[in-house]
């Protein structure tokens, strides 16, 4: 019964979305307030309906209602309750429903918090959100309906892919979708601005918190996914340049560019056309990511060809929205007036450089991800584009970008003093240089590149604080006075410093783990021992056990240091009979920033067991860095000037001008 209720709510949501997509925009065109006022009501109603629908599916999962095809195919009555719940989005249909739920959620947020927007802009933004909702609701209802029943209902379900039965993967998709779908707001704002043919600094200020929110969730989602792959896949890699990862990385790169260009637009009214284009492209790449992951085209062009309904449908959505948006852009962009002029060496110039490199990096990932598909379609030739390609092309693009990060905030708007900025960064530059030398000295034989990489990381960490240091006038006046100035700085400056600091931390983690880790692959008998990272690991033996819905072999290890036991760890190999699939649960112990990583291999003929032991130097820095980035975003979002629903248009304009003249 509740399943039918959910199904019906979904159809009603479609009807509401159609209303939301048409009436407010007609109202905006005719300046009809009554029609425009439909927008917030429709957006909130639509969210409530999709939420109801999602709740119904969740209930079917929690009660293991196998008369629902989707539940039968992806759940099992013995599955732990947590995974019954997260299993709702651990499959195609359910994850699309979550996608739509979040889309409707963002629409409702604009409806509730968008009171400071000009009425026509608000109506148009919610209207464009309505179009996206209609497209995806049609998609789910006609090609991916999660509420289909089967009769007679089977007694037991087919279980969720065991790799997905993990808390990391449970949190990862909602975060990622909050990011992906969050960019739909920037997109809707861009389209609304193009429709109205009016765009100014206030627009950038409205868009920035939404972009920042989406970026924050996407950062957290990608980081979470990376950590999940690290501990779950069993060989300790943290980034694979897999097409699925690239699909989420591209919107992140472009979203980062958008954050920075919107800043220029807000402060200086420059880069308007470019910012609008970025807003369109960031969401387009989110749509592309959805298409790549959901259509099966990545597994194989042929898998796509055998069941093309879903793929073709999303491809159509993709073409309509990206094509439509770009056509509108081509028609209207010239009517947008360009703003302030600036010299190449200036804060604006630095942000243009940031955009240039981030966009090129995005295009590199884009071409690398799609080129094999393209080549296969036109010439039947199959090639692979993997990690070595991306490391070789993407890596060098990051170096100038990273070097520019601390310099940008020290340049003034309009016309900056590069030499002056570099002079103010001398602590950071010297610090980075000194640490690089120390690395070479301590780790004799360490690759020079690794030393340079660590040096850049240190330079970023110190350099990210330079703006705070300068603005507070530390060292130039009494300490207490500096402290007072430090307190008075806008939070967004702290946010920027924190996020850039995080980039430095991540860089150090990436370089250290690839350069200084140790790896041992050995066949061990019980009581055998091995050295790794200055510790002795003793293999205690293997034990067979039974989990709730899996069988498991548990390897027990004792860790000694200087003849003293400092800890124990277990590493597991599980087997899930329902899906006939094995998984690994590596044994991971953290020491400071580094981790000991123990993974079980196959049994040997002589009764031994293959054990792989890594000592991953400073590996956690990779994810700590992203935590700083997310914190930076949160701090920025808490800035009164950016807070959603804060100052009215007039006031924001005034502060924007102040900011520009500051």
């Amino acid at each position: 019964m509740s399943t039918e209720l959910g199904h019906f709510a979904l159809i009603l949501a479609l009807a509401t979305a159609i209303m939301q997509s048409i009436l407010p925009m007609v109202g905006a065109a005719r300046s009809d307030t009554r029609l425009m006022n439909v927008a917030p009501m429709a957006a909130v109603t639509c969210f409530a309906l999709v939420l109801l629908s999602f709740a119904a599916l969740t209930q079917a999962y929690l009660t293991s209602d196998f008369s629902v095809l989707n539940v039968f195919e992806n759940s099992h009555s013995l599955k732990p309750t947590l995974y019954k719940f997260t299993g709702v989005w651990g499959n195609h249909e359910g994850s699309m429903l979550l996608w739509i739920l979040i889309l409707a959620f963002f629409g409702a947020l604009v409806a509730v918090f968008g009171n400071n927007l000009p009425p026509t802009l608000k109506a148009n933004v919610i209207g464009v959100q309505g179009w996206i909702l209609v497209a995806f609701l049609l998609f789910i209802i006609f090609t991916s309906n999660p509420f289909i029943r089967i009769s007679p209902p089977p007694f037991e379900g087919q279980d969720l892919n065991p790799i997905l039965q993990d808390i990391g993967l449970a949190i990862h998709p909602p975060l990622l979708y909050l990011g992906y779908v969050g960019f739909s707001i920037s997109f809707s704002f861009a389209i609304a601005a193009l429709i109205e043919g009016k765009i100014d600094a206030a627009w950038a200020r409205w868009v920035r918190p939404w972009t920042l929110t989406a970026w924050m969730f996407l950062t957290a989602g990608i980081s979470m996914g990376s950590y999940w792959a690290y501990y779950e896949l069993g060989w300790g890699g943290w980034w694979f340049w897999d097409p699925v990862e690239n699909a989420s990385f591209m919107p992140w790169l472009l979203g980062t560019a958008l954050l920075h260009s919107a800043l220029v637009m807000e402060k200086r009214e420059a880069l308007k056309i470019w910012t609008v284009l970025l807003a369109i492209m960031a969401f387009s790449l989110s749509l592309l990511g959805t298409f790549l992951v959901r259509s099966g085209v990545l597994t194989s062009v042929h898998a796509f060809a055998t069941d093309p309904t879903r793929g073709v449908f999303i491809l159509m959505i993709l073409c309509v929205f990206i094509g439509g948006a770009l056509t509108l852009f081509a028609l209207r962009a010239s009517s947008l007036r360009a703003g302030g002029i600036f010299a190449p060496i200036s804060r604006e110039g630095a942000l243009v450089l940031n955009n240039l490199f981030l966009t090129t990096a995005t295009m590199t990932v884009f071409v690398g991800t799609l080129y094999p598909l393209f080549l296969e379609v036109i010439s039947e030739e199959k090639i692979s584009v993997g990690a070595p390609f991306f490391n070789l092309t993407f890596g060098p693009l990051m170096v100038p970008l990273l070097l520019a990060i601390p310099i940008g905030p020290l340049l003034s708007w309009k016309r900056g003093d590069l030499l002056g900025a570099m002079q103010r960064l001398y602590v950071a530059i010297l610090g980075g240089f000194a640490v690089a030398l120390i690395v070479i000295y301590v780790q004799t034989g360490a690759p020079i590149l690794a030393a340079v990489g660590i040096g850049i990381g240190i330079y970023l960490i110190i350099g990210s604080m330079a703006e705070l240091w300068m603005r507070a006038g530390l060292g130039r006046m009494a300490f207490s006075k500096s402290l007072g100035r430090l307190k008075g700085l806008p939070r967004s400056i702290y946010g920027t410093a924190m996020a850039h600091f995080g980039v430095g931390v991540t860089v150090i983690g990436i370089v250290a783990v690839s350069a200084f880790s140790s790896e041992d692959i050995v066949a061990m008998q019980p009581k055998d021992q091995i050295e790794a990272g200055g510790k002795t690991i003793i293999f205690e033996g293997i034990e067979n056990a039974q989990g709730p819905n899996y069988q498991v072999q548990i390897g027990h290890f004792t860790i000694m240091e200087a003849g003293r036991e400092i800890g124990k760890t277990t590493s597991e190999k599980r087997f899930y009979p329902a899906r006939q699939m094995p998984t690994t649960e590596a044994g991971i112990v953290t020491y400071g920033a580094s981790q000991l990583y123990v993974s079980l291999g196959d049994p040997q003929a002589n009764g031994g067991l293959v054990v792989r032991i890594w000592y991953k130097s400073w590996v956690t820095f990779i994810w700590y860095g992203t935590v700083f980035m997310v914190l930076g975003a949160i701090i920025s979002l808490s800035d009164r000037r950016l807070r959603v629903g804060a100052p009215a248009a007039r006031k924001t304009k005034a502060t924007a001008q102040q900011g520009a003249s500051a």
Partner: protein
Amino acid sequence: MIKVLTSFIALIFLTLSVPAFAVNPDEILEDAELEARARVISADLRCLVCQNQSIDDSDADLARDLRVLVRNRLVEGDTNKQVIDYVVSRYGDFVLLKPSFSAKNLFLWIAPALFLLIGGLLAFVKLRNPDHEKVSSPLSSDEKDKLKQILDQ
């Protein structure tokens, strides 16, 4: 060809998502230098039946065979390039995770530089010659109000 492809797809599905265990102790060469070279080569070779895994990361039987093959060639005295050429001659370009610099991959390889160049040029030209319209940018509504106030005085 079709038959090869279908069996290939079947293989992909069989091995998809199986956790990887990579190199086994009995494969490791005595000569540490040769072993290090083998690892470098392996990282650039694709496990043909896996999704985007190198043979160094994969525990599939085929990956193991390839690892052993690479090591055998190295022991026989091949250079890294000779080993890779040999593997490509047997398995085709698909085996390379780093595509070759050939005519068909030209665009792939030059794309980053091309984008950077075009983007850089565009930005440079735009910065040098800002659109003429902005030179005489019209008054904003605030400015108009202010002007009106002044004029009305």
